[in-house]
């Protein structure tokens, strides 16, 4: 099992790591049994066209190298995107942007897009009119 250079970069210096106080949406995926837990915090705002965009995004992850680097990469991909665009980000896309993941890690640790989706759903639920 060997990680790509990009995975190691994101693992060593993760982007957007931390929590957002009074976040507009929060999503947590994974479980302690399998060892990987990811939590995503979102700050949502409207752009000039009146669309909802991810103004800020942060993550907290307890997990292996792949779990941490996919979290970091996903936040890079999602930041600044409209919710509609952000929902199109897939786990596969995150792995691809990282230059691939070891096969074993594709299923157990590649959950960042799921966490993002959950955080967006959380936001949408709270803001239902």
């Amino acid at each position: 099992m060997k990680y790509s250079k990009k995975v190691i970069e994101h693992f060593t210096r993760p982007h957007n790591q931390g929590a957002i106080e009074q976040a507009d949406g929060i999503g947590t995926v994974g479980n302690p049994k399998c060892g990987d837990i990811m939590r995503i915090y979102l700050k949502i705002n409207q752009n000039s066209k009146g669309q909802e965009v991810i103004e800020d995004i942060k993550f907290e992850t307890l997990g292996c190298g792949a779990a941490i680097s996919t979290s970091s990469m996903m936040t890079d991909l999602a930041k600044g995107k409209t919710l509609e665009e952000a929902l199109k980000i897939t786990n596969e896309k995150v792995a691809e942007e990282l230059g691939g993941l070891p096969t074993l890690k594709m299923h157990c640790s590649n959950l960042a897009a799921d966490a993002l989706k959950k955080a967006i759903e959380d936001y949408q639920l709270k803001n239902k009119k």
Partner: protein
Amino acid sequence: MSENKKIYLDNAATTATDQEVLQEMLPYFNEKFGNPMSVHSFGQEAMAAVDEAREKVANFFQCSPLEIIFTSGASESNNLSIKGSVRSFQLSHKDKDQKPHVITSSIEHHCVLDTCKSLEKDDLAEVTFLPVTEKGFINLGKLKEAIQPNTILISIMYVNNEVGTIQPIVEIGEFLQKLNQERLEQKLPKIFFHTDATQALNHLDCNIDKLGVDLLSFSGHKIYGPKGIGGLFIRKGTAIRRIQSGGDQEFKLRGGTHNVPGIVGVGAAIEKLSQDQNKSEKIIDLQNYLIERVLKEIPKSNLNGSRENLAPHIVNFRFDGVEGESLLLALDLEGIAVSTGSACAAGALDPSHVLLAMGLKHEQAHSSLRVSLGKNNTKEELDVFVEKLKKIIERLRRISGDVLKDFQ
């Protein structure tokens, strides 16, 4: 020592072959390359080397050379011990209804557990997997309770490879000796005693009469010898049959051309063990130093297992809120090699079966790190390790925040 030099703290996984051992092996690849089973002088020369190695191994275990066979390693020796014992029972009990019973523990190496599970699955044997205490020891009382009229074999490891606990081998041996006398009168099958001593050879007494074992597995590459070679002590009179056919090698118990360079290597390595008397003391000092520093200087750190009856070279730590594979990866990027009980590093779904059997929660098992010391490690290396470890754990805990709280 330069900070850039790599630090190897995974000596329970494997060790580097000693230079002297390697030198002894080299001629047997292309100068003295004969097949020991050949009658001509090339063969005789190779057979003489095999015999000499067998003597060295027998000296170490204080047994007869006729009681030592060479195998490809401890996994094969464990397979042969268990499957070979079951096969022997079957061949001498044609009554198909009577199935033999084997007792082992839930913290054995996978090669023992998987062998036992496959015998169970194939309906060839009944197996009891003994539980362990939270400190990682089998309970002698539980073992006694598990014995059945059809019990033929008990297989308990000498030193656990993940947490380093020393199992009560001498006590089991003494108990079985008495019990087998009673069983003889009751016309019940004798219970043979096997131990996987792979992790014990470097530091513990392996005199087979003191241990009271009938079968003992060992491996070359854990004792500064080569990989792909190991052996099995088989006490004279032990009911065991071959499981690998193909030739008359190894007293007809293991078919296959001798791995002559490997055999020469394991002989040389085992001979050196008796000569390096001081190394255990040095490693005990290092172990104490490591445990004290880590537990004192790293918050929320714990020792998995026991401080008593702990083999000198293995330490298993647990750091709450840190996942083992990420810790291993971060240390590796700093040039430090360790091992983890987390499934994420092994490509398995569940974390260490040993830590789970000791009652740890999954997330605790995932947070575990095994450090295993070797004779070439120094205090300076441990200083570098502890300093790096502190920083990495701090960083990884920052990344994980408090996500675990949702699940508690």
